[in-house]
């Protein structure tokens, strides 16, 4: 062991975390590779997108090539009881949950960070495209007036993953390293070649790892059969124009798969839980100009003192939209958009940005 700081890199066998590990090693850190074994449906383990036997063996080979130790950790129970449970409960409650947010908060930056620190690490790194900026010699932030660690978007806006990292606290960010934040995906692929790392031409993992080869609907039918709960599809005048299979199988803004023959295309506008009804409307009637978010995390550690104009992302891949963000009591926030948005989806996160600085965000509430 040298006197260099020790960093645990969360590895997946993919090109991003492998290059991140190589960069850290090059920067002189003591690097330890770790990988979590996550939960899969019994009998479907080989379909998991994050931690198959193959990807673990690949990560192990890469670690050996980089001459860093590698450890696999079991997180099946904690993953099942937090991430998967949250996913199922969200659909049962009529929202469209985002389990990656829970995974980042409770598993990667909770369970794994705890293990890394216990192992004696000073930092934990992931292959996320995002940046952290420490307080040294930097002016106070406009928002909170505090000197704190900032979470910044990746330099490559198309790859930016700060959306899923908006849940991090100052304490977590203090230990966080994102070696890829200043690079584009193409540069990362090129560096993989230069480091002599296998560039598995796997598709970027965007689907939920524990769904494997199933759709989320198939998964819910097996694991939460009570969501199969047919009810009426109503138009905005309250007329029954069809039947749905269960509200969980539909998403706000969805057009396909409604099974309604209508003169104009119809979109899911709203889920009415009390009546178990799916409300649909033509395109021109869709759109809301406001939302309320709860469980809001302010990266700076405290809400801003006054409402502020910010760019807001309402989905991972959504374009940011301008709005006025007003902090509310009880960890909530209200957003009034300057233009109405069609796909404000309860259960997804609304994440606030001041330019490249991620200010924080919260979970969009139902109406």
């Amino acid at each position, binding site marked *: *062991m040298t006197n260099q700081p020790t960093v645990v890199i969360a590895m997946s066998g993919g090109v991003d975390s492998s290059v991140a590990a190589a960069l850290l090693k090059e920067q002189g850190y003591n690097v*330890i590779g770790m*990988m*979590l*074994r996550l939960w899969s449906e019994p009998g479907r383990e080989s379909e998991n997108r994050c931690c198959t*036997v193959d990807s*673990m063996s690949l990560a*192990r080979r890469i670690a050996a090539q980089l001459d860093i*130790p590698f*450890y*696999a*950790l*079991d997180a*099946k*129970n*904690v993953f099942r*009881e*937090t991430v998967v*449970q949250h996913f199922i409960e969200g659909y049962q409650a009529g929202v469209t949950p985002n389990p990656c947010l829970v995974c980042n908060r*409770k598993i990667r930056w*909770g*369970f794994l960070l*705890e*293990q890394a620190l*216990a*192992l*004696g690490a000073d930092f934990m790194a992931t292959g996320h495209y995002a940046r952290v900026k420490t307080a040294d010699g930097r002016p106070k932030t406009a928002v909170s007036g505090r000197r704190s660690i900032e979470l910044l978007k990746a330099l490559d806006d198309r790859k930016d993953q700060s959306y899923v990292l908006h849940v991090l606290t100052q304490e977590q960010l203090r230990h966080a390293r994102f070696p890829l934040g200043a690079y584009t995906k193409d540069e990362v692929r090129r560096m993989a070649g230069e480091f002599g790392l296998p560039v598995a031409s796997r598709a970027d993992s965007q689907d939920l790892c524990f769904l494997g080869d199933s759709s989320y609907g198939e998964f819910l039918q097996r694991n939460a059969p009570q969501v199969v709960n047919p009810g009426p599809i109503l138009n905005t005048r309250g007329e029954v124009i069809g039947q749905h299979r269960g509200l969980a199988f539909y998403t706000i803004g969805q057009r396909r798969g409604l099974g309604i023959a209508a003169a104009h295309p119809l979109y899911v506008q709203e889920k009415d839980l009390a009546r178990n009804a799916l409300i649909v409307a033509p395109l021109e009637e869709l759109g809301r100009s406001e939302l309320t978010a709860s469980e809001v995390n302010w990266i700076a550690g405290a809400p801003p003192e006054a409402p502020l104009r910010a760019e807001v992302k309402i989905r991972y891949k959504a374009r940011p939209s301008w709005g006025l963000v007003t902090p509310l009591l009880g960890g909530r926030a209200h957003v009034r958009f300057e233009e109405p948005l069609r796909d404000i989806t309860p259960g997804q996160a609304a994440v606030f940005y001041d330019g490249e600085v991620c200010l924080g965000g919260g979970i969009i509430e139902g109406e």
Partner: protein
Amino acid sequence: MENTFIYLDHAASTPVDPRVLEAMLPFFEQNFGNPSSIHRFGQKAEAAVESAREQMAAALNCQPREIIFTACGSESDNLALRGAALAARRERGTHHILISPVEHHAVSRTAEQLADVFGFELEYLPVDAHGRVSPEDVAVRLRPETAVVSVIHANNEIGTLNPIAEIGALCRARGIPFHTDAVQSGAHLPLDVDALKVDFLSLGAHKFYGPKGVGVLYARQGVPLLPVQTGGAQELGRRAGTQNVPYIVGMAAAFALVQQEHSDRAEHERALRDRIIGRVLEDIPEARLTGHPTERLPNHASFVFQGVDGNQLLMLLDVAGFACSSGSACKTGNPEPSEVLTALDLPREWALGSLRVTVGKDTNPEDVERFLDALPGLIAKARSLRKATTDNTVSNS
């Protein structure tokens, strides 16, 4: 490896002794012939293989023709179990297999396959709290239709020695083939197949400072054995395939060194082992020795600790510079207690926290002291981590 890392996992593997490596080297480039060839290249290779066979036979107190060279201890176990069971069924119509619950997977998985696929009836012997088989339990379970019996000589996880000679005598008196897996014990104890009264005995070279990828099956003359790997007539038709000449030469050299040095090695190792067992049980609360306190391998100390995740402990140890092993030998992060620890009837909260420390002939006492100084703190850390994980899991459910 940097010399700051301390290797305490000799039951997993050992480094090749330089004297062994030297004996092997001529058989890669210079004497590379195929032992089955007629010409002088082949003759030289054949002479090397046959001389290795004589060395092994002399050490084991058997005839050279009773030595079968294989690719590893697991292959020897497979050949003994499958070959003896299938031969016994063909010649005697027998279908009963009797094994202990503390066998290496090479034996137990083979026996399970013989039961699942080939229709044999598989029966497990009981063991005591030290994982030891009693000859009386064997005696009452032997039947005329027993095809083969297999009891491990020294268990790899808990180090316990079994009374092989007594069990062998019972089987011999009834004419039932008896196999023992001596992969661990062969590295430490003199083995006399005549005194042990075994019909089959398995060895693997890399446990005794020989190379990986080579093993031996002793197969007593006259005991039926069906080949598992068919093909050429090598090894008297009992194991087809060109012999791995340099590795066979290396194994014989390494085994000869065991015969010369085993009492010195054992004396050195036993002192370290007893020091480890004594201090661990003294320094660490809620710790138990697994396996027999005295009837165990001279280099082998194994424990369970309450409230510890064994894999996590190995990680902490590795980061601190100590290479050890656990009961489950699992690198995929799937924590389940092993069958062996389960057979000891340990509570799950104990069985998950296993640790195996196995010293070698070159392990030095200062390194063992460094390990013993570090272990209590690492156990405490593993306990607080496991508690945090368990609490976390409960509070989030």
